[in-house]
């Protein structure tokens, strides 16, 4: 059956099995491979996207559930003119990624947190940023979120 929704501002109509997770529809049907497969059980957050602005782990949402909804993926964060989102810029400035595989999900989670809280506190960062990073980039993620929201990074010393 056809499932209609929008991705990064563009309308899409997919012929897909309704139980196919949104993750695989994005990656395999739409070629949006910036959203990653990590665990398949919503435990790691590598597949995080925004569904109607809410942070969502797309590996555990059937594509039929997003009919009529608006999806934003890492590929849709840049401005129309190609400029990076402030959070993406902060990620480069803090040299956050190591292997980089989880970072699309981390950035989507950070953007959602900032949209919700404005200037997230350390506790809010701890509570919201539950995505797993095996390389251990957490101190720099915290620093980048603070920098992107105009907060001094004094609360957490990242790089020496």
């Amino acid at each position: 059956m056809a499932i209609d929704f929008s991705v990064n501002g563009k309308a899409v109509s997919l012929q897909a099995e309704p139980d196919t997770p949104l993750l695989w529809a994005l990656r395999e049907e739409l070629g949006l491979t910036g959203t990653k497969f990590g665990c398949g059980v919503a435990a790691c957050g590598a597949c995080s996207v925004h569904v109607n602005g809410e942070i969502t782990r797309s590996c555990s949402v059937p594509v039929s559930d997003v009919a009529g909804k608006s999806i934003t993926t890492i590929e849709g964060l840049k401005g129309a003119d190609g400029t990076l989102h402030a959070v993406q810029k902060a990620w480069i400035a803090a040299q956050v990624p190591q292997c980089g595989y989880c970072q699309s999900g981390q950035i989507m989670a950070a953007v959602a947190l900032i949209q919700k809280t404005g200037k997230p506190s350390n506790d809010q960062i701890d509570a919201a940023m539950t995505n797993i990073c095996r390389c251990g980039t957490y101190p720099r993620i915290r620093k980048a979120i603070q920098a992107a929201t105009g907060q001094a990074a004094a609360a957490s010393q990242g790089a020496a």
Partner: protein
Amino acid sequence: MADNPTLEIEPAAPVKRKGVKRRMFLIGGVAVVGAGLFGISMADGNAVKNAAKLTTGKGEHSFATWLKIAEDNSITIYSPHTDIGQGSNTGLAQMLAEELDAAWDQVKLVSAPAESAFANTGLGRGFLGEMSGQPGIINGIPQSFLSMIARSMNLQITGGSSALRFTGQATFQKVGAATRLALVETAAKRLGVPASELVTQDSRVIHAKTNTSLTYGELAAEAAAQSLDNDPPLKDPKNYRLMRQSVQRLDIPAKVDGTAQYGMDFSVPDMRVATIMAAPARGGKLTSVDVAPAMAVKGVEKVIKLDDAVAVVGKGYWAAISGLRALSPTFSDGGNKGISTASIFKAYDDLIAKGEPAGEAGEGEVKAGLGTKPVEAKYQVPYLHHAMMEPFALTAHHKDGKLNIWGGMQDPLASKMKAAEVSGLDADAVTFHPMLIGGSFGRRLPMYMEIVQQVTKLAMQLPYPVKLIWSREEEIAQGAYRPQSAAVLKANVNSNKRIAAYQNDYAQTESAEAETTFIYNLPVVARRHYEYPSNQITGAWRSVNSTQQGFYNESFMDELSHSAGVDPVEFRRNHLKAGSRHLLVLDTVAQRSGWGTPLPEGVGRGVAIVESFKTIVAHVIEASVNEDGSPKVNKVFTVVDAGSIVNPDAATAQIEGGTIMGLSSAIGEAITLDKGAVQQSNFTDYPILQMAGAPPVHDVHFINSGAFMGGIGEPGVPPAAPALANALFAATGKRVRNLPILTQAKA
């Protein structure tokens, strides 16, 4: 050093040195004798020619395999290492570009093709030196000979914290310097001036007197025809412009906007997706499977039975995994049904009690030295999983007698050779296309290449390209784990509060001797390995055996200090050589952490110092206990002596990440076995530390001792677990001897 150094590398490791095996495979079987007699060129002629053929087009010129200068002045560096996220490729580019005096914004770094012309000479050089115990001796061995060794071993590996210290120092700096000399000589001829009047900067050769300059691009064609100096002088570090600078990593921009392409992301037209389940008990075989339930799933096209696994091929991953989950395959257990976590620990205890080690190292008469009442402690650590964020994914296509494979492995060249072996094709018919790797930590090394074999077998019987993806469940259950290990440590501390004798009896599959450096200066010390094979393969897990050995020795040193009534830092100082690098690292971390100053109620401070991969790392951790009994790390202070640092910010990131990986494993990670099979299935029961558990404060400091460069990717890990355990003891009086600290619920 003698002009004609003689290195004899034993073809097979004797029993007593079993732990060397993981390194021996690198150069095993190659005897290196009288190496100084070989000719002088950067790599041997054939390799250089083949490399040039593989990388250069019109207007492009190849230098010593690893460097290409184009007439438009752009510079491409070919790295034989896979940047798993350590930033090592940026570091390598910094090293070559520094000596070349290249314009940094015109430097591009790409993966070297997985072809033998690009086998890694620097690695052969580094490991030869390390194994012979004489790092200096390698300087007499010409590149041409190392190139030959590396190619004979299909050596293109990333591991052993080797990229910068071996490839960088042994090869890339020299390639940069030698090429710079060739460009200068070419310019001197063309301008009719003495070479001594020329300087280089930003990819130009400049003659200040006449205010003229030539770009490297303009000189490249002629310079490439020259033979290069095999042993060019390197820059004085005080003139560095790129090295020792925190330049931004080259790979990061593509990792923040979703454009970075990992093996998982590869696709080609007509590609199908497969997923697989191997025998849960390693060593077992597939005994039966009814394929019908999978074939009934929409999108499933084929079920393929392998000797020890069943694979389902579908239109996409969801079809394939749904099909696989619909199956009820049965597997034999390979005779391993009696193997469990408890049975392995029991066997370890029995072996140590019996006292017949498979290998021994150390000095002095330990039995007499220990006396009748030594301090004694027993420690146990579990199997650990790498849990890299990108599960295995390789795409393979067999067509017209050629096999192409795309994906990320720590040794692309060995992967290619393995695929050739499994497919029966000539190596020339197989191409491995290296892609970005989403984490590895030792998991994607060539000795554990089941996925290469699996995808090759699938591709050889499918008429279309196939991407094989391991589910996270498969990835956790079929790991190449850091070994489960146990140790009984004993020591005799004399009336002067000095250790008179020290014994470390440890049991696990392989010897830890190759990756373990015992730093203390003791009159009598024995390290004895008790060998017990389980059905699991012994993996290389970030810092290899240094994790458990670091935990044993640094926990026990803490116990000894308390039993002697001496401060833990002071006690360690008393057993380190005066004036040593170790002592300076320890003193510096004590000073930076405010060791000895008061702490809030319930907070304890712990110290640990471990040398691994020639780098010395000490952590001081401040920790307390949460209401639920879990440990809370408040602050970490780290001091590192890696000799010198190429990119301070990237190195800091490695220490931060290594520390967190060490803490994560100490706090919560364990792979357990029952009936020979792994009990964990996903991140739900193999918990990785998250943001809230990571240290909110981490002070990282480097000491630039100028010693031979050590590794930076791994050495931050080993002291983390003992520093935390020691801090918890200081906070609570309870000693952690078994890891993980949180004994997790079984799946």
